[in-house]
């Protein structure tokens, strides 16, 4: 077993430097360590000024997304042993402005996420006394896969279209819109259609499919987008062929 592994980490301290630089750290190798453990080792013992986001360490919070050896990954789920003998390259996610070191500014994503209204919309909220909204296992299965999204933004970092067209609403936001569209309790699909069928919505996607490849929760945003393109196209046909009242 090798005693140590080298990490090449992107540093960017806006008060010190105008361009990101590369720092090299030697970290003890342990079989059960993930890249996040190595980053925490660096912060605790080698350089306390290294900045990165993390929280749960178990692939649930979606905070620790970074590029590991060029691919967007959750660093808490990327074992050092998968990248031996190293060096392991750690960079901030692509296509987001870097705030500091490995921390990116996620406000663009947060704004887009809110835009697709990822919550249950009802015309009439049922009074509590009438009990809960019941759902069959089949109705749950219709959207469950999309509900696994943890907003880690790896799919945005993997999407070349988002890189070229920053206005593109993006994979996770569309998958989450579809998560609520497919929910039997939800009645908000027409509202979301307005947003998703705009130019910056589903039609920007050219089905590269990288979003689905990198998703750590197997959400399949590419599938959600293609599914929604069919919905959008059918609505387009209806708006063309049917009189206003029958749409």
């Amino acid at each position, binding site marked *: 077993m090798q005693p140590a592994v080298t990490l090449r980490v992107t540093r960017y301290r806006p008060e010190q430097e105008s361009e990101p630089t590369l720092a090299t750290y030697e970290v003890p190798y342990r079989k059960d360590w993930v890249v996040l453990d190595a980053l925490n080792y660096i912060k605790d013992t080698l350089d306390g000024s290294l900045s990165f986001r993390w929280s749960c360490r178990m692939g649930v919070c979606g905070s620790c997304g970074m590029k590991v050896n060029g691919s967007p990954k959750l660093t808490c789920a990327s074992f050092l042993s998968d990248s031996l003998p190293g060096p392991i390259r750690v960079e901030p996610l692509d296509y987001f402005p870097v705030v500091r070191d490995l921390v990116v500014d996620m406000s663009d994503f947060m704004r887009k996420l809110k835009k697709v209204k990822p919550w249950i919309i009802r015309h009439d909220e049922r009074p509590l006394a009438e009990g809960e909204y019941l759902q069959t296992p089949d109705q749950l299965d219709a959207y469950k896969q999309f509900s696994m999204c943890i907003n880690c933004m790896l799919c945005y970092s993997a999407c*070349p279209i988002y890189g*070229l067209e920053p206005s593109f609403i993006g994979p996770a936001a569309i998958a989450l819109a579809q998560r609520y569209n497919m929910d039997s309790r939800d009645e908000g699909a027409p509202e979301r259609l307005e947003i998703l*069928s705009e*130019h910056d919505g589903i*039609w920007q996607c050219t089905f590269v499919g990288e979003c689905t490849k990198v998703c750590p929760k197997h959400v399949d945003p590419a599938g959600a987008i293609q599914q929604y*393109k069919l919905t*959008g196209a059918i609505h387009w*046909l209806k708006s063309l062929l049917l009189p206003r009242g029958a749409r």
Partner: protein
Amino acid sequence: MPRSITPFLWLLFSAGGTVAALLFPIHILLTGLAVPLGWVNAPSYESVLGLVRNPVARLYLFVFVSLPLFHWAHRFRYTLYDGLQVKHLTALIVVFCYGTALAGTVMAAYLLWTIP
């Protein structure tokens, strides 16, 4: 919903992709491998001509040729946009891609219509 024709082009694209994915392998297997390699005897000119005289066969061949051309057009348009980063040539690319697909469609229709 904007009155753009993107949804229509996408419908042609996805229909063409479905046709190509489902039917092309069969035709490649039959006319590209099975006949040239002698796995099956080549049908005579007369029997193939007899087959394509059938209106259903003509319609099948029309769909078989036309839709995948539009699939190509849509895919190639975005390959040029994003791959070569030449989005400023939009008008030229659109006319070239969908124009070629349209020309192929018209040619297929003409040839199939005028089979003796």
